[in-house]
């Protein structure tokens, strides 16, 4: 589609309600840094952002501030608060990864309850497949249930600026399906993960027909199809 045809769709895209083909067309225009679409989408983003001004404000509970600041505090004071919850090996492995990296900052080792709950939902699925991988470039473990994927990886390659890791679901036949990007969101360290060597990543979504999972390095934001050779490929 041309930029002219997409103009009327920027607003819906900014709100997350655009439909295909406009949805993927706008993403493609942005990916190739189309100036008209970037300008249009930015304007639409401003409109969408402005809508938050119509919300009635509610005071958050006071402990929320402490929780958020504790995530990035130099001394992690509450690292073990959630330990009793953890019945699977996930947190043990995650903490081990944290310990391995001497430069790890407290931010990423702070409790990310939502992510942990999502991870546990996948790990506790009786039909989840559990595969350990040990490629030369990275090693770790991947859990795949019909509901999603938990990837725990160490020794990830160093990311250049503006690059991110992208997880792929490889079906028995057909193209790789993107399963999201990660770059130090959970326990990988520091700014943009460029020094990161470990990650715990949770993907929620269908894993139907998954025969293998793979990880590549992609431009920031990810790619619709892999643009580099996977450094992790794990058959299920």
């Amino acid at each position, binding site marked *: 589609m041309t930029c002219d045809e997409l103009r*009327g769709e920027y*607003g*819906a895209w900014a*709100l*997350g*309600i655009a*439909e295909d083909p406009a*949805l993927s067309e706008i*993403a493609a225009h*942005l*990916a190739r840094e189309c100036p008209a679409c*970037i*300008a249009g*989408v*930015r*304007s639409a*983003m*401003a*409109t*969408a*952002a*402005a*809508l*938050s*001004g*119509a*919300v*009635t*404000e*509610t005071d*958050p*509970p006071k402990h*929320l*501030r402490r*929780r*958020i*600041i504790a*995530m*990035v*505090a*130099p001394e992690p004071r509450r690292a073990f608060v959630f330990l009793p919850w953890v019945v699977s090996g996930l947190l043990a492995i995650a903490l081990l990864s944290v310990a391995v990296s001497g430069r790890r900052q407290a*931010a*990423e080792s702070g409790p*990310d309850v*939502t*992510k942990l709950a999502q991870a546990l939902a996948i790990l506790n699925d009786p039909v989840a497949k559990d595969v350990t991988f040990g490629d030369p470039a990275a090693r770790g473990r991947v859990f795949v249930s019909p*509901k999603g994927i938990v990837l725990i990886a160490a020794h990830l390659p160093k990311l250049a600026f*503006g690059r991110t890791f992208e997880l792929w679901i490889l079906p028995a036949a057909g193209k790789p399906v*993107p*399963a*999201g990007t990660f770059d130090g969101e959970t326990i990988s360290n*520091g*700014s*943009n993960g460029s020094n990161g060597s470990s990650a715990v990543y949770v993907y*929620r*979504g*269908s894993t139907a027909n998954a025969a293998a999972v793979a990880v590549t390095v992609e431009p*920031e*934001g*990810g790619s619709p199809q892999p643009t580099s050779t996977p450094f992790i490929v794990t058959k299920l």
Partner: protein
Amino acid sequence: MSVSIDEKRTVFEVPARVRPARSYPFTPHSRYPHRSGFRCNNFDRMMIPGLILALELSGQHDEELARRLQRHDPDAMKELYDRFGRLAYSVVLAIVRNSPTAEDLVQETFLRVWNRIHAFEPGRGALGPWLLAIARNRAIDHVRSSASRMERNAFELDVREHPTLFVDMAREVENTDHARVIRAAIAKLNPNQQKVIELAYYEGLSQPEMAERMGQPLGTIKTWVRAALAILRQELGQEVPA
């Protein structure tokens, strides 16, 4: 199943004095006040001083704060939370309607900003709109059906909240009486247009889902969405560049 739309909550507050004299058929606040987490008709008391202050401050200090966040200065996180935490929590709570869940999602939002701040352009970026977009995305992603989530994967979400899309917008939004302007703009929408924007913003419904919910053809919904966004853009002075 189709649900009568006047049974659904209307979540935008509309200022009393800019509201048309006749009441909307689809504004259920007065009929179902207990269903709405949003106050209405009390605009003068609801000037959202926190929001105004936050937006004014952010114009002056965004750049410096962003640079401190990029250095991973923990005090910068405190300042970021003090500036936007209340608003982010309010947006998320309005969507998920459950305080513990909202807390988790706000925490996730701030962590995401902390981890992605490297891609933010301190001189041009608008911290508040970016953070609030992330907060809303986390909340919408949480309430969406799993089927809908599968269609709209993490990739799309990542693109939609990329910091480079939130530049050069701060001044437009922040140098005005933002809450008043946005509510006045929403008041210019007709009830159907208001409803589709609410369903999109607060429930993350896709346009086909809105069509089902409102019992209208998809084409009609798309027309309402497009018209509503055009009016908002015009009222907010955010023309799409040619």
